[in-house]
């Protein structure tokens, strides 16, 4: 069996393929409907992780690998989680010193890009 490598019903590939499109479309909609705040945050990460999971599990066949490999590949990135988590805390801290001591604006308003300006101008006319 294993001599034939990773052989799986083609159906499942098509299913995942389709799911990836659907999920990408959903995350696109999140932006299109201008969802904001925690909901946006949650949805984006949710769709992202789902897609990533499908790619790794099905397309990269991780699902069918023996756990020895899965374990070997998936545990080391835990270190990255620690890094990410700590960096998030620290960045916030650094940012707060900039606001408190350096007089930086805590909530600056973004400028609109050039073509966007043109658009709105057009509409105003």
């Amino acid at each position: 069996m294993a001599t034939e490598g990773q052989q799986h019903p083609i159906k499942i590939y098509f299913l995942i393929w389709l799911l990836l499109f659907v999920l990408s479309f959903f995350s696109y909609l999140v932006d299109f409907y201008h969802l904001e705040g925690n909901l946006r945050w949650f949805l984006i990460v949710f769709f992202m992780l789902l897609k990533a999971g499908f790619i790794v599990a099905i397309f990269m066949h991780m699902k069918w690998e023996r756990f020895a490999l899965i374990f070997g590949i998936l545990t080391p990135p835990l270190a990255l989680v620690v890094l990410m988590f700590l960096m998030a805390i620290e960045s916030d801290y650094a940012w707060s010193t900039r606001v408190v001591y350096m007089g930086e604006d805590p909530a600056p308003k973004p400028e609109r890009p050039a073509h966007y300006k043109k658009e709105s101008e057009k509409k105003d006319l």
Partner: protein
Amino acid sequence: MATVEVPYQETVPLHHPKTWIGKYIFSQDHKIIAVQYGITAMAVGLVALILSEFMRLQIAFPGWEFMNFFTADHYYQAITMHGMIMVIYLLTAFLLGAFGNFCVPLMCGARDMVFPFVNMLSYWVYLLSVIILMISYFVPGGPTGAGWTLYPPQTITPGTPGVDWGIATMLISLAVFIVAFTMGGLNYITTILQARTRGLTLMRMPLTVWGIFIATFLGLIAFPALFVSAVMMLLDKFLKTSFFMPAIVSLGSKLEYSGGQPLLFQHLFWFFGHPEVYIVALPAFGVISDLISVHARKNIFGYRMMVWAIVAIGALSLIVWAHHMYVAGMHPSFGFFFATTTLIIAVPTALKVYNWILTLWRANIRITVPMLFALAFVLTFIVGGITGLFLGNVIIDIPLSDTYFVVAHFHMVMGVSPILAIFGGIYHWYPKLTGRMLNDTIGRIHFYFTFIGTYAIYFPMHYLGFIGVPRRYYETGISEFYPVAAHNLNKFITIAALIVGVSQILFIFNLVHSYFKGKKAPANPWGANSLEWCTPETPPRHGNWEDRLPTVHRWAYDFGVPGEEKDHIPQTVPRRKAS
């Protein structure tokens, strides 16, 4: 029961070249590549050694006319190149490139690395990185003088020597080195995991291979952080991006940066940097374990614990990085986390030390040259390790950080111990590699000079740290914290360093001389058990094993088994049927 049949046993496609160049230059034989790595690393290490002697002369005799050419710029360029070469281009390259290449296939009973061509490329790319690094000395402005830690903004602001091109060659060379390392490292890991010979389970592997295995793995996941920070720094320098660069007024003029975060670099650097120190420590641990066991004619004590300690150290080393940043102004609460994880690492490391020493108990110790180096390693590592405990405890690090205490710590634990392990390993494996013994007397003299000499250099240096002498000072000048006695101590240290440096000539002489004139080595001069001593020929041919791969029946430490005739039983000897 459904079973899976393991696919056909893969074999290394051995490429037997006909020409001399193909055999010895663009060779795909792991042993030749090991030698190439070793020679290059030693050559570049020699450069670093000479730099260190100049540094020492400057520190001890600041006003001396002979040293007049050695300006502050030169000094900072020297420490940077010295530190970087020693850590990356000498130690990492030697322990993994040379020992890794030599030991892994032989000790795993493989014919070669799994992808010999990639392995060869790895060396040539490494050589390229060394050349780029050396070009530093010929570009306008010279090499960078930012310290081996390359902390921004300093690395790319005008107040630092070598900001024009030196920093670029340094960063590019590092990136190239990482590519080389990745190619080699993937090979070592895959060979260890997938190409062991029959009967060789992971728990029967010699500790050397374990050390190299975990170190390489650490390298593969730690070097990316350095790679990323090097890329970002290059962009900061040449494209004027502001990743690490906040708004800065440098020497009176405003630079066109804003909003960057210098601490990000430090985190990335040490996310790489701390694992890196274990990358150079773990193979050394492994080598020492084997040397002690073989030459003490006794099994290594607590093998299982030794393996788990290596794994635990490797895993923990990924989450202690910010102990280098206690005074860097990071988030204050991180101190608790990192001090705790750092000191936790001390426990598995301490166990390793205990086990080495316990191996000596009721052993039958042959005081050979490799054994001398191994014993010295243990002592210097204890000193370096416990000074690490001082530094790891965050509050003690506050007064000691950036003083000579730190310099003493890392030289003891990195500049002396793994160097001793390398020497020990060379004395141990040279016979297998060349078929000749190294000269014993020269070896002993070299050992005593090196061990006592380096101890004399670094032990007193801790105390300079206590009185507050900061590191990276071109000269201290007249200062109240710096008594005359300290100046004298510095002179003493420098003289010791000169003696140690010169005594290395003995070693080089020994290497060259014995290659041609040394005693012919028997196949297994030390009476060791691991597979490399079981090759049909000494030195082993390309492909290592004639027509059949060896079969392993036992661990590598069956020394002094009661009831046996000989005090050592090679791994290939089948076990007696349990009666």
